[in-house]
């Protein structure tokens, strides 16, 4: 199923990511933490109703490792 126009997905910079965990707290629908505290991020496009929350999760990351990019 091709993504809707303008749909975005979450992309993580794994080098910058430090396992701080704020993203998983804010967006538990799409992000879970593994047993070492690092995020497991859904590769699917972000549903429109979660887009705002995803933006918030991205800006909350203390090391700016999380971004929203075109799907």
């Amino acid at each position, binding site marked *: 199923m091709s993504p809707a126009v303008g749909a975005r997905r979450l992309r993580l910079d*794994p*080098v910058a990511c430090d396992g701080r965990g704020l993203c998983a707290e804010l967006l538990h629908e799409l992000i879970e933490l*593994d047993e*070492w505290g*690092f995020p497991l991020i859904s590769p699917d496009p972000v549903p429109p109703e979660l887009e705002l929350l995803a933006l918030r999760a991205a800006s909350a990351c203390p090391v700016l490792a999380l971004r929203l990019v075109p799907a």
Partner: protein
Amino acid sequence: MTGAEVVAPSTLRLFAALPGSSFREHEQVHGSLPTHSAPELIAAAEQAGLTGRGGAGFPMHRKLTAVAAGARPVILANGSEGEPASGKDRSLLTVAPHLVLDGIQLAARAVGAQRAYLYIPRDAVVQRSVAEALAQRGRQPGAVKVEVVTGPDRFIAGQETAAVSKVSGGLAIPRFAQQPVYEKGVRGRPTLVQNVETLAQLALVARHGPAWFRSVGTSAEPGTMLVTVSGAVARPQVAEVALGVEIAAALDVAGGPTGPLGAVLVGGYHGAWLPASALHEPLSNADLKKYGATVGAGVLAALPAERCGLVETARVVTYLAGESARQCGPCLNGLPAIAGALSELAGARPRRGARADVERWAGLMPRRGACAHPDGTVSFVHSALRVFAAELAGHERGRCTATSSTPVLPTPRTAERGWR
């Protein structure tokens, strides 16, 4: 032609010239550098079906086209060979450096590059061979300047973005790339990263034509490749074989097995174990797929039956865990954990949850790092659990079929631990 024959010494291609040949001798054997235009070279690479010989097997003409589309591209000839069980790049650079340098010049012409970098290991023999070859060539008219960069003796130093990082003046560790290297590589310029063997093959294709290249190998995977045959064989060596040759025949080039074999490691440390029953299989990606293997970087390491495959695997995975760049959480945490559990499985009566731990942690590795180091390691681990399943069961009952504790696969530890 089915390509079932091994390339006989009389029809050697990459190794046709004698080791230590001067530039003049090289030109006598192979002919002078062809004068084809850039589009002709790219077309020749495409018609020949020339794919990367660095392990990934990506079609060369597509890389050439992508890089040629960029502004002021550069060439990065990758000969750093971080794979301990592989010696083909070192051999090629020592025995036939002029073919590699020819390939660099042709690739530069094909993409419109004015600069080239030759990335080699910190090996005295290789460095001398390369320096001599460059000195013999001097400055040919229209030739691109080749800058030699030596990299550290680390597994990950040959990874594409690590090579670009090192050549750009940084550490030889993978970078999280916002854009692919063919758009933004060395110092921000579109970069063609190609294994030295692939470039040498291009130098031959340009001289003899695509049809000649395709006259050995399989129709889907044409040409020859260099394999490093090691382990329980009479004469471990780097040999040139046709793609599609039987694995057993490739082992025979190195004098054949010294005794019954338990398994063969194909590809490299990110490759896969093949059971001894699979030695009749052709060395081609199409045929190896069912074993979860690819030809990779041409490693063929024969494990003797008297040595425990689980112990070897645990040793290698411990080495691979130590070779992590330690930049990404999953790799940094997961590989040592997997190595620890594998070491338990390689011992007598392992803890009940060890196998489940390996599976769980392995499942947390793919596509979560800046490079494929964790992915490749996990692939290797899975093949071991498959091929050595009987051994695993034996260990649970406190039995091991091995009678030898001599390590087979090399796990070097360099004195320096950095990536400079």
